[in-house]
């Protein structure tokens, strides 16, 4: 903060001000580090405990310097219990990737219609999308369950992919609209004059130019799908169980093994942590539905 001094200020306050400012600057930096570390501590503790043996994990006071081991991970991946988390992880991946692909298929043309060539009453359409995101999903759970039950779609991972598409489509449309609005209109009009149809315009111009935005949108949709648990808990069963549901069932059936629980939490969170850090700079745009950049 003290670096951007103007000449007028410098002449008035001179050297004394800079000297006085130095220490508070360091203090603020330290406060920021302390806050960051405090919030990061539970994550560090989760990772550290996951690499401890069960005996070292369950001590009081905590044994920070205990030897590291992969025991917890081996247990989680089912060496002793026989229930492997791989099917659940694969199901979550299918639902998250499948729904993200579907979201893009719907969202890119929609965002194109809403930003590049604004249709009349475009803001009404935008707010319809947004309003669906604001209504509580739990209020629609029962009818979805009844329909799924009567059409034989219960315990089917692709039903989850469709539901997650509906969950994420509003975010994606809002995000993509704000990204597509940045493409110069001249480029698109030039393509239109050359006689390019919509699929060509999307494939040759819109998608390459908006690629970073599309990537960020995909990552955020992936995260929300991977995290979802209420619908998955009600609508999936043996075959299509997702990772979060597996996690809750895993704890109740295993009793309490701290290292194992932490290993499980790390494994299930890893894809989200990676996707989140990759999308870090665009995270806020996604979370605020494009309202904040």
């Amino acid at each position, binding site marked *: 903060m003290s670096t951007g001094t103007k000449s007028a*200020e410098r002449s008035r306050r001179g050297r004394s001000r800079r000297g006085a400012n130095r220490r508070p600057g360091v203090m603020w930096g330290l406060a920021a580090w302390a806050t960051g570390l405090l919030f990061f501590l*539970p994550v560090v503790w989760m990772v550290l405990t996951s690499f401890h043996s069960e005996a070292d994990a369950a001590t009081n006071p905590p044994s920070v310097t205990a030897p590291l081991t992969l025991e917890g991970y081996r247990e989680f991946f089912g060496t002793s219990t026989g229930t492997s988390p791989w099917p659940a992880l694969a199901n979550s991946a299918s639902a998250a990737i499948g729904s993200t692909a579907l979201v893009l298929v719907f969202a890119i043309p*929609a965002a194109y219609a809403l930003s590049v060539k604004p249709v009349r009453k475009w803001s009404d*359409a935008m707010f*319809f999308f947004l309003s*669906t995101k604001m209504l*509580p999903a*739990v209020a629609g759970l*029962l009818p979805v369950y009844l329909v799924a039950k009567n059409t034989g779609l219960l315990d089917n991972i692709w039903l989850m992919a469709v539901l997650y598409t*509906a969950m994420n489509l509003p975010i994606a449309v809002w995000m993509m609209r704000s990204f597509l609005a940045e493409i110069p209109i001249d480029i698109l009009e030039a393509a239109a004059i050359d006689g390019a149809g919509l699929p060509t315009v999307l494939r040759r111009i819109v998608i390459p130019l908006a690629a970073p935005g599309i990537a960020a949108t995909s990552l955020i949709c992936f995260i929300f799908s991977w995290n979802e648990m209420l619908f998955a808990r009600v609508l999936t069963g043996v075959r299509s169980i997702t990772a979060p549901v597996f996690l809750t069932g895993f704890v109740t059936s295993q009793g309490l093994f701290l290292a194992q629980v932490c290993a499980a939490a790390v494994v299930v969170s890893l894809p989200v942590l990676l996707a989140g850090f990759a999308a870090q700079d665009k995270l806020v745009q996604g979370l605020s539905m494009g309202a904040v950049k």
Partner: protein
Amino acid sequence: MDKASPDAGPLSAPARRVRRPRRPWARRAPLLPALLFMVVVTQLPFVATVVISFMDWNALRPGEQGFTGFGNYAQVFSEPALRSSVLTTVRLTVGVVLFSLVIGLGAALLLDRRFRGRRVVRTMLIAPFLVVPVAAALLWKHALYNPEYGLLNGLLTWIWALFGGQHPPQPDWITQAPLASIVVALIWQWTPFMTLILLAGLQSRSLEAVEAARVDGADAWQIFRYLTLPHLRRYLELAALLGSIYIVQNFDAVFTITSGGLGTANLPYTIYQSFYQAHDYGQASAAGVIVLLGTIVIAVLALRLVSTLLRQEQS
């Protein structure tokens, strides 16, 4: 994509018509699949929920279906468990949003300054939001709150030993303060969300005004009070409203940490329970409609706010 093919027609016409096409349907076509999908998947279930909420429908008593008017609603409001879950939802939401907003504001102000390792600190602060919610709830329940070997009581033992104390307090966090335990875990997860939005707000304010105020002799508090805070107002509102929308719907933390016990059942959990365990479809739907109405109030406020942000972007 097939629906969009008529678009090729006006595009091959003279350039003037490209800018003002006379065929609105061709322009709307790319929007239609998304719109249709959302109406079918998200709106129809709500309509069904409203209908079912007026029915006497318990899956365990088939053949006894019929309309009861407002019977389910009367039941929802007369049953103390459901009434208390409305109250719990409000306390949970207000508690989490308020605290994470204040802490998030502090963190955003700290991150807005330049210091060594700023990006690292920012990444560390985002991390809690990127732990899968169920995993985060498990982490807090077992690794932090556990009375025998959780980190919190472990740290208490440590600190006491440091000062030579023999009997450190070892509270059973979840039993003694069940709702507060959930609130703290959620504050940890949602503070990054608030921080990110407020930080974006801070970085969008004009530095010239701040610099000018400083030259005029304003101190840090005055700059914060009369420049930063008014500028941040809309971002604070947006963060609070979006946060409320997500936290009103919270299920994972309540389900994992207390299973809705000890007076921590919020409305989503109660709805889940009444339909998943008691199979009372009518009553679950009535509770659903109540959540729906409650959220619409927040949502209308949020939508109005977003629309002002959007209009500013347009102009």
